């Protein structure tokens, strides 16, 4: 009976801790939405990723190239129309194979920037090439996911980023 009580107390303690973590998990900072910047040169993929993210309760900005992404972030050297401090991006998801600037090159530029290097970057690619995956992860990519991207992928990534502290 004594051990039974202990187990119950343990459970209660664990549950209340989870509740606390659960509350902070739910919000990014106060009532802000989880804002994702998606980069892909394919019309079809852009439409699908936008929908996947919206269904997952994310705020979405979709652009068609690495250079447009840099423009949006204000990293292209030009004066950006969006104030630095106003821009809150929680995650960047980029296609790997894009004309002009690849997802890898975009990843590098983001990690080189003091303003945005902390933002998790996920690479999406239809190709399962080990050397490519390694290179992206070494450069600081959060994950490398194989296309087509599924709803479960987006959910998992969002949970990881929102839930993990100091990952």
């Amino acid at each position: 009976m004594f051990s039974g009580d202990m187990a119950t107390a343990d459970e209660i303690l664990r549950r209340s801790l989870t509740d606390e973590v659960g509350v902070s998990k739910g919000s990014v900072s106060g009532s802000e939405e989880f804002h994702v910047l998606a980069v892909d040169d394919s019309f079809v993929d852009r439409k699908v990723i936008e929908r996947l993210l919206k269904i997952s309760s994310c705020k979405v900005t979709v652009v068609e190239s690495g250079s447009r992404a840099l423009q949006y972030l204000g990293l292209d050297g030009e004066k950006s129309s969006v104030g630095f401090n106003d821009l809150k991006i929680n995650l960047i998801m980029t296609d790997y194979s894009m004309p002009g600037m690849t997802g890898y090159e975009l990843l590098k530029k983001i990690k080189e920037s003091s303003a945005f290097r902390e933002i998790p970057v996920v690479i999406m690619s239809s190709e399962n090439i080990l050397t490519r995956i390694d290179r992206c992860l070494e450069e600081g990519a959060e994950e490398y996911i194989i296309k087509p991207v599924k709803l479960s992928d987006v959910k998992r990534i969002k949970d990881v980023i929102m839930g993990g502290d100091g990952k």
Partner: protein
Amino acid sequence: MDILNQLQRQYTDFTALLYREGFVDENFTQVQKLQDESSPDFVVEVVSLFFEDCEKLVNNMAEALEQQDVDFKQVDSHVHQLKGSSSSMGAARIKNVCIAFKTFCEAQNREGCLRCLQQVNHEHTQLKTNLQALFTLERQIVANGGSIPVMQ
């Protein structure tokens, strides 16, 4: 009631056929799952985008293959794009043709490429016809007050 049942059965049978014959695969199911009341035309929109994209890429490929000195890297990059979008949409047959197409590009085989291009056109037409029929069935079901059967 009778008509509705018939339509729904037709829809189920037709959908099963499309999957069985490899016209579409589970990625198409994923796309369908993304449609709901807040985005009721999502599937039709994605499919339209895909066919537009497909036509554009096919034209680019045809042009590139007509050149005296074919730039196979160019052709390959168009095929790669088509492979990507057909995969995302679940257009399985088109995707499979693209896989073969890429091999011919790598081998710099113009004849092989042209054959694949023809096949892409063929599959494009077939898929368009099939999906239009599917969407028509959907509209008829809804018009008769029914709901579209959910697959799997």
